[in-house]
């Protein structure tokens, strides 16, 4: 966990309202798949959490969707601009030695932390991804996703499967028999996944999103409700949780 001043190397539009930002850190930062960083945008007191897609030596790439003024301002950053960064944060996705076949279910901006998983395990595991988008124009980072088996789903059928990523996945799950399911996306998608895989006894992990303050677990702003009634910090105890341990 380090506080650094990062230098923007590239900040490019990769789909409608979606950008990919690559920055250089001071020295190498080890990031596990599913971990995130907090990035400061000039003029905004709160930093924003961004899932890391790619971490190579001292280069980190995050993907983001323009959601408000902060991300809008960030989208105008150019190579050479500086931004404050705190990283790496959170627990990340953990895949055990014996889990050989990974199913990945992602939707919208939720694909970004999953890309880091695909990149990390593309060589050593069998990966089947089901990634959902609104339409063809919203599809991005296809090259990265294609490091494993990929099914793209679009709501309007303009590319790939017509329907949601969860629907596409559930058509294959019987034949596929994955050892583990990793997911990230809008809450309704995660809820649908939880219901769909209930009783199948396949370990399923989800990465959650919440508005954050400190990003390190101190301020208790980004809590989620656990199934046992307690509260967990998304930034510190997560963002990745066993799907059965959290209320969605």
């Amino acid at each position, binding site marked *: *966990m*380090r*506080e650094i001043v990062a230098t923007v190397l590239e900040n490019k539009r990769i789909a409608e309202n979606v950008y990919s930002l690559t920055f250089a850190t001071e020295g190498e930062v080890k990031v596990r798949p599913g971990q995130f960083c907090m990035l*400061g945008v000039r003029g*905004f*007191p*709160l*930093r924003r959490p961004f899932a890391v897609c790619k971490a190579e030596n001292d280069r980190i790439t995050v993907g983001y969707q323009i959601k408000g003024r*902060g991300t809008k301002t960030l989208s105008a950053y150019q190579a050479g601009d500086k931004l*404050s960064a*705190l990283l790496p944060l959170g627990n990340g996705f953990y895949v055990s030695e014996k889990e050989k076949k990974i199913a990945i279910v992602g939707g919208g901006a939720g694909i970004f932390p999953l890309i880091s998983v695909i990149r990390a395990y593309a060589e050593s595991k069998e990966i089947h991804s089901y990634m959902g988008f609104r339409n063809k124009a919203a599809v991005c980072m296809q090259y990265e996703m294609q490091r494993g088996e990929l099914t793209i789903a679009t709501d309007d059928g303009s590319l790939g499967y017509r329907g949601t990523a969860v629907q596409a996945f559930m058509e294959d799950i019987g034949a596929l028999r994955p050892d583990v399911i990793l997911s990230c996306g809008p809450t309704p998608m995660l809820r649908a996944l939880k219901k769909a895989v209930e009783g199948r006894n396949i370990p399923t992990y989800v990465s959650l999103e*919440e*508005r*954050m*303050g*400190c*990003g*390190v*677990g*101190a*301020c*208790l*702003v*980004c*809590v*989620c409700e656990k199934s046992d009634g*307690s*509260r967990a910090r998304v930034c*510190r105890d997560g963002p990745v949780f066993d799907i059965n341990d959290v209320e969605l």
Partner: protein
Amino acid sequence: MVDLSVKICGKELKNPVIPASGTFGFGREFDEIYDISVLGGVATKGLTLLPRLGNPVPRIAESSGVILNAVGLQNPGVEHFIEEDLGWLRSKTKVFANVAGSTLADYAEICKKLNDIVDFIELNISCPNVRQGGMAFGVRPESVEEVTRAAKENCPSTPLIVKLSPNVESIAENARAAERGGADGISLVNTFTGMVIDIERRRPVLANNTGGVSGAGIKPIAVRMVYEAARAVSIPVIGMGGIACAEDAVEFLMAGATAVEVGTQNFTDALACPKIIQGLEEWCGRHGVSRVSDLIGTVKMH
């Protein structure tokens, strides 16, 4: 060499910079980023008698130059803090145990438990985010005095710092009320009650509807209130409200604060506190100030 140490209620802090309650937990997370023993002290997350789950999310929002929070005093309870965190935190730096309650008896009970085992008790009578979060005690001077007295009777050997709400008619009046009640010091300002509306959804951003406003945007108001409060009492004052750099801290010292707390800026920059400490030393050095305590209350009014 600049002497950064300050004395509050007879106790020496190695420098006047303290992370503010609620932004720093019990210090463990930030200690993974830097050694928190560099700090003058740490104001802990607000402690209640029993554990609290806090408010629903979203608990945080942003507006120009400020943030709003409505965490709702989520904490593991005072006993848990004493058993799990206090020893460790005290080995690092001075502990300002922030205490919240919903009844006079709560405040009395928690203070009794903390008496003599923490360096300072910071009495939170101004949490705006919980119906029974002490705010009821923080508004009227009579109740400020009453809750201060109830607390002080139960922590005779630990300095009691009463944290004042800015959402009041007269800050000077409430500062004097705390002093009459037996406070050994006061700290201010807690957050201002505010609201941000998501105009697309026509609903407040915060699940609690309102929240406490903090950050750089409140600083001039906080400086004015610290000045007014410091003039009204003879006990030490800890100033806070939007401090983001060493120069901001100097303003609060000149306004009459003996030490300062830094809150929101810990979110903007995790190294905010150590940077402010270093910046204070540099500022004093550049201005020929040999002791930071020489700055306290030195503002000259027009």
